[in-house]
């Protein structure tokens, strides 16, 4: 059901893209193209790391570099901290943001490692309010292809992805739940949470 409607949506985007090429409505056309370009480049780098056969630790390092290059890291960190971010000091925010990048690269890097032998392919782009949704398909060994979506905005002045969905599962929401639970478990102590993030999986 969803796949059918998604296919229809893809067709519509294709048609819309075709219109843009004939009569460019500047900004929109540029952004759709640049959003797709960003994800193509991102996916290309991820695929290269997956295929490299490097050690786990080396891969996590690569993923961290990719995350910093293509991701809106300050937005993702701020979202994950949620309301608790309001009472965090400047130093805590900075430290959290840095630790969070390492944590995310390790955690999602471990998931991407399961893609070994597989690949991601960018399929389509659609504008959503003031940002873009780029849909990619993941192909894994003997597994029905599934959808990985990236949301791209130019909030920072440059195109960066600020969220990722794997079969509808939202990185931002999942991490806000996780960080929130970590803070609760530590009686609201932000410093403790930040320190423990270093070993969190």
């Amino acid at each position: 059901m969803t796949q059918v409607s998604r296919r229809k949506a893809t067709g519509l985007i294709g048609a819309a893209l075709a219109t843009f090429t004939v009569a460019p409505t500047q900004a929109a056309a540029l952004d759709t193209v640049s959003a797709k370009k960003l994800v193509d480049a991102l996916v290309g780098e991820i695929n290269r790391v997956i295929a490299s056969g490097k050690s786990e630790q080396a891969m996590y390092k690569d993923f961290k570099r990719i995350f910093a290059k293509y991701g809106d890291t300050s937005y993702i960190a701020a979202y994950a901290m949620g309301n608790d971010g309001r009472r965090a000091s400047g130093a805590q925010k900075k430290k959290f943001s840095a630790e969070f990048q390492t944590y995310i690269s390790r955690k999602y890097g471990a998931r991407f490692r399961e893609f070994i032998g597989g690949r991601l392919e960018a399929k389509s782009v659609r504008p959503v309010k003031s940002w873009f949704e780029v849909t990619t398909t993941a192909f894994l060994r003997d597994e029905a292809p599934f959808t990985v979506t990236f949301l791209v905005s130019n909030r920072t002045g440059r195109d960066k992805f600020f969220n990722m969905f794997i079969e509808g599962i939202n990185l931002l929401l999942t991490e806000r739940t996780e960080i929130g639970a970590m803070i609760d478990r530590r009686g609201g102590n932000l410093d403790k949470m930040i320190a423990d993030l270093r070993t969190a999986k």
Partner: protein
Amino acid sequence: MGIVTLLTSIWTRLALLLALAALVPGCAQPGPGQIEGNVFDPYEANNRQTHELNHALDKAMARPVGVGYTKIIPDDLEDGIGNFASNLSLPSTIVNNLLQGNVEGAFRNSMRFVFNSTLGFGGLFDVAGDFDLNEIGGDFGQTLYVWGVPEGAYIELPIVGPSTERAALGKAVDLFTNPLSYVLPNPDKYIGTAAGVASKVGDRGRYAETLDSILYNSADSYSQARSIFMQNRRFQLGDGDAAEEINPFDLNTEGF
């Protein structure tokens, strides 16, 4: 089984199915301010107890058996069992595609079933998938969604795990929606069930790391499992547009 008995038995079951569907308005409805994080979970205390039970069952049985299964059974055979089980469950998916008025889905799935049952040696090989003819999902919980039945409350079922009232009712009805179970003689029809169980066990082993990261490594595995289940389920149903929910321009990121 004669065709008349077959039809009578289908009609009896269909009547039962409708009776079950009539129970649906009994799904709990959220009151104002009762939806936390977009999930209606009035039975949280009970659910958490079930979660503890499931956690213990996983630790003692499902995880070790699953990991052992994946280790012992060669990958090709494991894939074959998975394919075989999913092929035998396709007729039930097709019934649901049709109940939802999704003729294209029913057609694609029927082609899949024919190809894989013949060229794929009784469903052991997914030849249809090689031609991009992938399964269009369909279950009775989804059918209820298409019919406009509300989601109901979140519930964690023993052994089965996260669900909603609507999805759980759908699962119960789906015990009766597979036409094969009316056509196949008695012990044969349980082969599909057995293969289904084996395939689930294999999945537990194969995705051990990912599932462990949710069940064992998260700070609150109950709320993480709930969040992940709800997001994925709504995505499968096409319920809501998750991409619209979070506006990156709304948040103060200063200092991060």
